[in-house]
């Protein structure tokens, strides 16, 4: 009698997690690429002009906001990508079930969210440094307490992870039925354009503001984590029924 291999979820999760880092290495190169692109865009800056006491104050504000925005989009795309057939089927070549496949994906997404946020936060320093060196001789505010950096990183990570979660759900819908691959982008882009044109925060931006305007850090934490869990649970339950058609 050949001895059968006993296995448990945690052990498999650990292997799948490590495997996904090697397998999805291109996720990181795309992160660097997209953030460098965003840094480039950041040099346009936001321009403020104020009148008062008979003088005009020109305020050129450079920030990493674009980088963070791009990181969100990257997070969304990355999450959708890893739900596609080839990526899901890698798991099924080796040892997996649908739950471990999803959980390891989520752990992977959580990790890339944190990494993406750290690099996004650091990019603000890069922007300031480049501005200081090459673009402007005005006063540049460099000061940033570590605590601010830390909270900023956590906030950005949570946002990024929320985007990942949404992407994962979107991917799950698309895998459930191909029709969603048309419906969801059209709906999303349409609403985004609608928001942009009306300069109003009704749909997607409104949804975002629900989080941004939360000033209590505890509630913010609760809101994002709850939302992510809800979205991910929905995605996991969809994937749990999907068959492998390789």
């Amino acid at each position, binding site marked *: 009698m*050949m001895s059968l*291999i006993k*296995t448990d979820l945690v052990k*498999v999760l650990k292997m799948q997690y490590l495997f996904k880092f090697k397998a999805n290495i291109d996720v990181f190169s795309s992160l660097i690429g997209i953030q460098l692109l965003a840094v480039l865009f950041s040099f346009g800056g936001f321009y403020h002009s104020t009148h008062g006491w008979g003088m005009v104050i020109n305020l050129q504000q450079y920030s990493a906001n674009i980088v963070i925005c791009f990181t969100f989009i990257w997070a969304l795309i990355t999450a959708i990508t890893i739900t596609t057939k080839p990526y899901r089927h890698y798991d099924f070549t080796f040892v997996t079930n649908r739950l*471990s496949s999803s959980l390891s994906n989520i752990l992977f997404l959580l990790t890339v969210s944190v990494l993406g946020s750290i690099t996004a936060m650091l990019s603000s320093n890069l922007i300031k440094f480049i501005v200081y060196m090459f673009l402007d001789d005005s006063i540049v505010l460099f000061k940033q307490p570590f605590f601010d950096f830390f909270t900023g990183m956590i906030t950005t990570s949570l946002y990024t992870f929320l985007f990942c979660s949404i992407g994962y759900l979107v991917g799950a819908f698309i895998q459930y039925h191909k029709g969603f691959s048309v419906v969801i982008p059209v709906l999303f882009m349409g609403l985004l354009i609608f928001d942009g044109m009306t300069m109003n925060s009704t749909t997607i931006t409104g949804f975002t503001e629900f989080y941004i305007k939360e000033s209590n850090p505890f509630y913010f934490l609760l809101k994002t984590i709850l939302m992510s869990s809800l979205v991910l649970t929905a995605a996991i339950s969809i994937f749990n029924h999907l068959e492998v058609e390789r």
Partner: protein
Amino acid sequence: MKIIECRDISKMYFRQKALEQLTFSIEENKITGLIGRNGAGKTTLLKLISGFIKPTAGEIKVFSEQPFNNLFVSANSILVDDSMSFPAALNLGDIMDAAAAFYSNWHQPLAEGLLDYFSLEKYKYHNRLSKGQTSTFNMIIGLASRCPLTLFDEPTIGMDAAVRKDFYRALLKDYLAFPRTIVLSSHHLEEIEHLLEDVLLIKNGQCLLHLPIYDVKEMMISVEGKLAIADQVLQEKEIIYEQSIGTNHVHRVLLREEASVEELQGAERMGLKIRPVNASDACVYLTDKGKGVIDDVFNKN
């Protein structure tokens, strides 16, 4: 001990039946040939056993558990086919390392030895391999992982004759060294019959027979000769297959149990040629679509 047990399993794809009330079981440490024509449901069955898909009806047990969404079944089985997917970012060496991590029985010396023998280099990428090389590499993964249940779905697609022969020998040698339950699907029974202990023949999603290969080889006999004599000798016997040769000669196949040894000896003395039917041809006759022989298509015109 039964490794695979299927009871009345059916599988529908968009209202089309891929498997219909299939019932069989496979014993431990046997090499079983899963034989059937294109579209008979071989791949569907293997995917059900692997837990990739779930049956529409019926019950399937692998290692006494339901395979769908089952980590235990997944850890103890592997399905090798030409559409096994590997990450594009990993080269062959990396893939082998991953397989080694996932499959506890993985035998690295075997994997490296086979990789070297078949001239596959570790730094190459899976999606750059030719069709034959892909099959060869997937087969290496399948053998070296030494899963208690190893499923091969048409493993030799694209392999040249020499590689196929080497693969069959490698499969047998590693099976002898490390006995396990193996299911090998193919529509070329003559190529794999020497490896098999049992044959599971399916047709239109149903189990036609599940017998030791020895019994399949003994199952049928072919009778060839003059039509008049054949009619006289074989009257009231069920004919499985018939082909006319010219106008007054005929080739007929029947079950061995239909005729006694004396009857056959008598037939031979009357000038009929009696021959055993090999396992491969027997399966072809059994899985006949019921639309007559290929000649009928031409005879209509």
